[in-house]
């Protein structure tokens, strides 16, 4: 179990790190997709089946498409090879990140976590009952947020004069 999880963690982490390091924006986006797929596999291995598929569907099927579209629409030819970040900025960023990393790492490894038996996977029906029962208001709110986001995204990305630009 732990070995499988470790392998999947590597499958997830290596593309993520590579995605942040490569210069080509398209490569970066595709590596992010790979990292998301790895994460979905990790969820699957952990036993969160429904969440794994939902994650893959939303990220690989939806977010990645939007990202790639945005990359293409913002002139990949000129922008894909970005100039290296300034040394000062990189240094500042790295210091901040290493600070966060050390905090997180120390808190994880020095905390004595209770070792209990893994919780059995939640049946799908139970998840549905939770969503439609105690969390119904939250579900409706999320639906509202998604609708607002859809309309807002359309308005933001639409041409200045929608009457002339046609549907965006």
């Amino acid at each position, binding site marked *: 179990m732990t070995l499988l999880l470790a392998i999947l963690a590597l499958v997830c982490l290596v593309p993520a790190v590579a995605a942040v390091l490569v210069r080509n924006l398209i490569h970066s986006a595709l590596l992010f997709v790979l990292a998301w797929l790895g994460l979905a596999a990790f969820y699957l291995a952990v036993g969160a089946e429904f969440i794994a598929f939902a994650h*893959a569907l939303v990220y690989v*099927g*939806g977010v990645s498409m939007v990202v*790639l579209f945005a990359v293409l629409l913002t002139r990949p030819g000129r922008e894909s090879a970005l100039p290296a970040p300034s040394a000062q900025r990189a240094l500042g960023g790295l210091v901040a990140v290493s600070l966060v990393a050390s905090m997180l790492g120390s808190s994880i490894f020095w905390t004595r976590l209770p070792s209990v038996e893994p919780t059995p996977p939640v049946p799908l029906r139970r998840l549905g009952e939770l969503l439609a029962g105690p969390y119904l208001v939250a579900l409706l709110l999320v639906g509202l947020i998604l609708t607002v986001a859809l309309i807002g995204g359309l308005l933001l990305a639409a041409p200045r004069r929608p009457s002339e630009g046609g*549907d965006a």
Partner: protein
Amino acid sequence: MILAAAAPASPADAWLERAPLLLRDALTGWLPDALRPWVAALLSIATILGVFGLLFAYMTLAERKILGRIQNRPGPNRTGPFGLLQPFADAIKALTKEDIVPRAADQVLHFLAPVVLVALSLIGLAVIPFGRNLVAVELEASVLYFFAAGAATELSIFMAGWASRNKYSLLAAMRALAQLISYEVPLLLSMVPVVVVAGSLSTTGIVAAQGGWAAGVWPHWHALTPWGFSAFGVFMVAALAESNRSPFDLPEAESELIAGHLTEYSGFKYALFFMAEYLGMAALSAMGVTLFLGGWQAPLAVLEFIPSYVWFGMKLLLLLLGFIWIRATFPRLRIDQLTRLSWKFLVPLALVNLVNGGLWAVTSDWTGAAGVARWVVSALLVVVPFVVLGRSLTAGYGPRTYRYASP
């Protein structure tokens, strides 16, 4: 896989019905217990690969034959009797052709794109119940798995288009993305009412929910209810678009983009793309059969003696024939027509249908006059939005008048 434990007289116990399982047990029976599930899994993978590989080979032939007949030609008839060896001749030709990679191309992505595409087209087939107890992987959320696997296919088309470093390929890549974003939505929305009514996200559960007949002749298939018929229509149109088939084959529009994302591909990689197109088509059709046409259920109670996998295959072939028929008939859409059809017609229709399916699920215990009212309301909820949305979609598109050419 669960072996059927039904009454002895039930068709599930017929010898032919259980033949695949018996064959599997015979092949794996002598193995130690630890190895048996692995070998069985490998066997089912090999079976799926073999059957769908052969299906792909003969789909290409059938497509060429039928297109030929529709265009008053005989189609391929030189290689073997009735051209039956044509797929193998094509395969040999594709394998022996030179593999050309443009110098400026992104070598890794250019190679990965067809491989990833074929792999993604295949993994969706794992959750399709091809017959009673014939499903490779039993998952609780297998429908979601199928669409998650299918969502990534356009990604490899994008990879192919972008990695070729060719402007036509890049345009194809953008078109593929626009098409995917547009048609993924109605595809998923059309499948939601099925999940609501069947009360299950697993393919086997959905097929089981469609078992049985009203009066022995009217099967409880989802496509035979008003909301299901509408959802089936939306699903198949979106499936056409998702599998890049005509009339939605904009990413490879040969009259505008040479071959779109396929422009810089040759030889075996091209063959892989070709294979992925047919596999994707077969997978989506298989999903359509599972969700709407009762999966492996027989259409009439008296026909149950025919094995379930035969029924599944017949329904699958029927849908694939429909794909070919549509390809032979309709001209390609423009990109703006494509997106308008999705956002202004299919998505609202699917949304109304969602309500319709919900009502159907809530009113499932209505019988008698109330049952008739249920059917009428459901039918009205399909017909009225169809007419209204169709009006608005085609408003201003009367029959074309030719100013100078008409007499």
